[in-house]
Structures are given as C-alpha cells and as structure tokens.
C-alpha cells in the first residue's frame, strides 16, 4: 500500500503552519501565551497597519494541530465567605414553634364573575375589588359622610403600612451587633456634623421629612422607692466614699515626695536613680555596676560615679 501520498499531505499541512522567524517566539505555557519578539517592518506597518497585522497573525486552520484542553480540575477557593443564613423573621419563628407549614400563594386568582385569572395584588388586583366596585353595602350605624370606598382603601393602606413596619422591625432584628454599632456611629457622626456650624445647625437648610433631633432625656429614679432599698444604696455610696478617701487620702503638700515612696522614706529613690545613671535608668546602672565588679582595673575610675550617686541621694533628701 502506498502511503506516501498521505504522508505528503500531512507534511504539507504541517509546512503550512510552520513559520520561519529570525528569533523563535516566546512561549509561556502557564498563560497559554505566545509572544513574538521579532521587530516589525516599520515601513509596511506605517503604510497599512491593518493588513500588515493580519498578515502577521497566524490563521487558525480548521484542522490544524489544535489542542482541546480538558476542563480545569483545580477548584479555585471562594473569595468571599459563605453567606450566613438569614435570621428568621418573627412570623417564621412563630410558625416554626406552632408547626405551621408555609403555603405559597399563587400570584393570580380565579375570578368567578369575570371568568378569568386576575392579579392577587397590583394592577387590577383582587385586593382592590372592594374599593373599586360600583355599588357598596352600607352598615346600619354608618355616618352620613361615610365613604365605603375610601374606608376600604384606608383599610388596605393600613395593612400595607403594617407590613412595612413589620418588615423594618425584622430587618432591625436581623442586624448584627457590628452593623448596629456602625449605624449608631454613622448617626452620631451625622448629628455632630449637623451641629458643627457657627449657629449650631440652627439656620441650616433642613431636608424634607428630616426628623427632629432629640437629645437623650435624663432619667431619674422614681420618687417612691422602698425605703430599705434607698437606705442600701445610700450606705453603699457612703462606704464607697470611705474607701475612696482611704485610697486617695489628701496628704499635706510638704511631704509629698517622701509619701510617694511610702514607708516615710527620706530618699526619693526614683530621683536618685535618675541622677546616678545620668538619666539612663536603673537597668543601665545595674549593668554598669556589674561590669565594674568583674573588672577591677576600671573600678577606681567608676568610683567617681558612685560618688555622684551618693550626691544624688543627698539631693533627693533635701528636696523631700
């Protein structure tokens, strides 16, 4: 069997995609990228950029040596933490406690009279049926100016408002303490900035519907406290005062320095140390003294320092 024709055809296919370049292209397998470092022919490039670039670019042959990469197997880690489950609303808590299963209502309802599906709410909704009907039943005790359509509408609006309120309450309950703190801080900052003008915010333009700023009201204990309890709190304050005076008892100013050392010491150790070490502290002085003891030769030279330390003591005494 002569396969030379087949081999030739195969070779021709490869030669069609084989490219002669002055320097080889740079292959970055990691990025699946090939960069061509060869300089471009500036003449033809400036003459007609588009055609030059398309000539340079390699055409992909429909049956060229294309590699079909398998699907990547490495799982990239999740960038964000998993969302936390939403805290249950008040109704969800209640229904869980009572064992009420959730019923999903359809958006549409069957209207018997009109013989068609109508919206439960929204445009032409079933919940507006009562206020839009052309004839109304009046209760016996109705006032003269009772408007049944308006009453029905007010009733519906009230339900909507109640739901909105409950929703907000649920949202507030679902807030974490962190969120609550942040919100409080933002509100505090806002209040501060509001009152940070020359007029303490008095003449600033108010936004529509901006709530009036109310300060924190002082709260006092009720007038009628059980006398036993009142006595107990008073005695507690008294004992606290007693212990407080024992701790931070006033001392005459004259002997303050010696008092700081306790035990009625005449020497102000802190001051003497500072003077002896030349302001470098007791640790440095200790190290130096240790070195002195080990090397006798320098002990005489350091003797002067010790003399100065004794002078420091003397000064501490006189100042106290």
């Amino acid at each position, binding site marked *: 069997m002569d396969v030379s024709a087949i081999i030739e055809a195969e070779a021709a296919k490869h030669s069609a995609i084989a490219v002669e370049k002055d320097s080889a292209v740079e292959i970055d397998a990691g990025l699946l990228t090939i960069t061509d470092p060869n300089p471009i022919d500036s003449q033809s490039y400036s003459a007609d950029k588009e055609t030059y670039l398309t000539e340079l670019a390699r055409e992909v042959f429909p049956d060229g040596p294309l590699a079909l990469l398998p699907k990547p197997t490495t799982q990239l880690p999740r960038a964000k933490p998993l969302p936390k489950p939403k805290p249950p609303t008040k109704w969800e808590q209640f229904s869980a406690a009572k064992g009420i299963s959730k019923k999903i209502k359809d958006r549409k309802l069957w209207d018997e009279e009109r013989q068609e599906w109508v919206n439960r709410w929204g445009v032409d909704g079933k919940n507006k049926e009562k206020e839009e009907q052309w004839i109304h039943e009046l209760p016996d005790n109705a006032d003269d100016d009772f408007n049944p359509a308006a009453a029905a509408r007010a009733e519906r609006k009230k339900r909507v408002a109640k739901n909105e309120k409950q929703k907000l309450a649920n949202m507030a309950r679902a807030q974490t303490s962190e969120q609550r703190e942040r919100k409080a801080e933002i509100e505090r900052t806002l209040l501060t900035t509001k009152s940070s003008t020359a007029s303490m915010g008095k003449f600033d333009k108010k936004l529509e519907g901006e709530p009036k700023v109310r300060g924190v009201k002082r709260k*006092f*204990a*009720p*007038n*009628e*406290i059980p*006398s036993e309890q*009142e*006595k107990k*709190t*008073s*005695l507690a*304050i*008294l004992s*606290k*005062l*007693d212990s407080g005076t024992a701790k931070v008892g006033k001392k005459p100013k004259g002997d303050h320095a010696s008092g700081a050392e306790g035990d009625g010491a005449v020497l102000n150790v802190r001051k003497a140390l500072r003077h002896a070490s030349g302001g470098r502290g007791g640790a440095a002085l200790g190290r130096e003294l240790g070195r002195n003891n080990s090397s006798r030769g320098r002990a005489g030279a350091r003797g002067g320092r010790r003399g100065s330390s004794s002078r420091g003591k003397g000064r501490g005494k006189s100042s106290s």
Partner: protein
Amino acid sequence: MRPLTEEEQAAVFSKLANYIGKNIVHLVDRNDEAYCFRLHRDRVYYVSESSMRLAISVARPNLVSLGTCFGKFSKSGKFKLHITALDYLAQYAKYKVWVKPNGEMPFLYGNHVVKAHLGRITEDTPEHQGVVVYSMRDIPLGFGVTARSTVDTRKLDPTAILVYRQADAGEYLRDEDTLF
C-alpha cells in the same frame, strides 16, 4: 422633687462628712423612721418618708419646701450646706468650737471667729476641718472651717482668724427669702 443621683448623693455626703464624719450613717439609717434625701429645685431636703409621700401629691410649682433643707446645688454642680442643716450637724458634730459671749454677735453678723472670741475648742482639731460653732451655753450658732489646728492656735495673736464662717444663724434673718 426627685431622689438624688449617685453623684449628687456623693457630693452631699462628702460635704456632710466634713462636719459629722461617719455619723452620716445615723442620718441614713435611723431607728425611729425612714428618712430620705430629696432634691427639689436644686435644693436638697432631708425628709421623713411619710411626709415625702404626702408631698408627692403636690404639684412641682406649688411645692415650696418639705422636710429640712440641707443645702443647695450651685449651677456648677457643687453642693453648699445651708444653716438650716445646723440641727443635724450640731447633733452629730465631731469637732466643736465654743465662742465667748462677746464673740456671739460678731459671729451672728457673718464674721469669722477670731482668737480673742474663742472660748473652747475640741482637742486635736486639725487644720481645714469643718466645725460647728456653739455659744458658751451650748447653743449652736453656725458652722465653719478651722484656719489652724488646735496646736497652732496658741502662738497666734488675738485678732487672728481661727474659724472661717460658712453659715451662721443670722442668715435666718439676712437670707430669709432664699434660704429654704
């Protein structure tokens, strides 16, 4: 009318402690009847619990006074003892000063107690100590703060001030309108 807050109570007690020391306990913890401190229009009243409960039913603008006025809080939050507290201070005073009969009137007119008028003084009274001033017949006249300790008084000349006046019974006439 309201009970004192903790800070206010501490201010009152620390001021009282200058004069009667630890005897404040006897004011708080009484055997006969429960007494309490109440604040009304910046004034501190020491009042029995029963009359305090009666005063609750009086509207705030109509309530002029109740119990014994001990003193008042200044606008800056400092507590100042009034002469009306003298009864209790005299009862429990730790340190006392007696003035001679010729010194009574000058003291009641609002002057300090000078050494010439000093009749007796409690032994070992320290400097800057709250004292109650009595006449020689043991009638409390007012209270003040010592300028010198008992030991130091001996060397002083007769015109030197020994007790700085804080309040005297003459205020009942002089400050009649604002006292209670």
